[in-house]
């Protein structure tokens, strides 16, 4: 049985209130979900809480899962909405630390200068400076290896927007690196 079919079967059992199936689905996908939300909210405690909320929602709504998308797409879609509501709340509460940190990061402090010798570390640091929307799409494409249609389903945007958002995320990445003294020759 394929992993996707196995997942569908687990969700069907969860709909029938089978706790063992929920444990199995959790074991299979919690790492993926936890990392996805942790990269967005950047706090492990909140990421853990959101991960549990995702599986709690699966427990409650497994009966509504139609199986058109894969279970992992469904899980990340729930996770996306949960994380976005946390980020939105943060933005409403204050001019958040994340923004302040991003501005500070644009300066060439001694640490950054030292890192310039390590292109790999710089690239990773530049990725951290992307906006949550850009970080999310980069993670979905590169780490979770989601197709255009799957990203569209998870984030809730049209497929053309998926392509342009990814394009501009990459473009922004190059701009950040250029500002840090690394010209990638693109765009």
């Amino acid at each position: 049985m394929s992993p996707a079919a196995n997942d569908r079967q687990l969700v069907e059992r969860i709909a029938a209130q089978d706790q063992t199936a929920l444990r199995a689905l959790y074991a299979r996908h919690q790492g993926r979900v936890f990392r996805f939300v942790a990269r967005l909210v950047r706090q492990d405690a909140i990421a853990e809480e959101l991960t549990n909320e995702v599986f709690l929602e699966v427990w409650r709504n497994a009966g509504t899962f139609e199986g058109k998308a894969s279970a992992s797409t469904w899980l990340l879609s729930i996770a996306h909405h949960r994380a976005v509501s946390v980020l939105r709340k943060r933005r409403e509460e204050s001019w958040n630390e994340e923004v302040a940190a991003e501005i500070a990061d644009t300066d060439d402090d001694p640490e950054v200068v030292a890192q310039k010798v390590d292109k790999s570390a710089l690239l990773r640091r530049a990725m951290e400076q992307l906006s949550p929307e850009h970080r999310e799409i980069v993670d979905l494409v590169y780490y979770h290896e989601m197709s255009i249609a799957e990203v569209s389903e998870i984030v809730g945007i049209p497929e053309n927007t998926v392509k342009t958002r990814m394009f501009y995320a990459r473009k922004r990445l190059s701009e950040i690196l250029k500002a840090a003294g690394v010209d990638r020759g693109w765009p």
Partner: protein
Amino acid sequence: MSDDKLALSERKEIEMLLPWYVTGRLDAKDRARVEAYLARDPAMRRQLDLIREEQAEDIGANEVLGTAPAGALERLMASLPERRPGLAQRVAAGRLYEAVVDFFTAPTARGVRLAAIVAAVLVLVQAAVITTLIVRGDNAGAYQTASGQETGEGIPLLVTFTDEARAPAIAGLLRDLDATIVDGPKPGGLYKIRVRTADRSEAASLAVQRRLTDRRDVVKSVLPAKD
């Protein structure tokens, strides 16, 4: 659109697809488009290297995050809402009150469907009963006074009761006479009563009137009445 603009547009479209080309998540049609373009413009291959670098760093950044901490699963399992037995199971277990309260306070999709079916059946039964009554056209559903139907038999009389007469005393007197109030109160506080008897002679009527007037504590006046 000029050829230059078309070429630029196609280049941008291909560039937008490259990340998925690298991850192997393009559909066959788009993959063929990208490969055809790469064959024509080998310089574009440089982009593939950049994307592979980005992907490698992104994977590294994700993998260092680890997973949800130990104990998170147990916390999740402990927080699961308690499984509720079905309505039938609870009714069988004698927890009818809880089942009914739960049915209305926490309706499930199945519960709502059940309620809709019950409501529809009640409406149909009601409609059937009303139709039957109309079609039969008998007096089963006709209006009747609480004191009974006027039959036209027995001796009809008009009576006024004293101001002090209490309901139990009036009821007792009517019972003794085997009489029923068939109409009233009319103007002047008159009630029409009918005494059940086969003898409708004048003598019988006077005898009944006498029995009534003898009860001065209850009856103020008595008059013969027509059917």
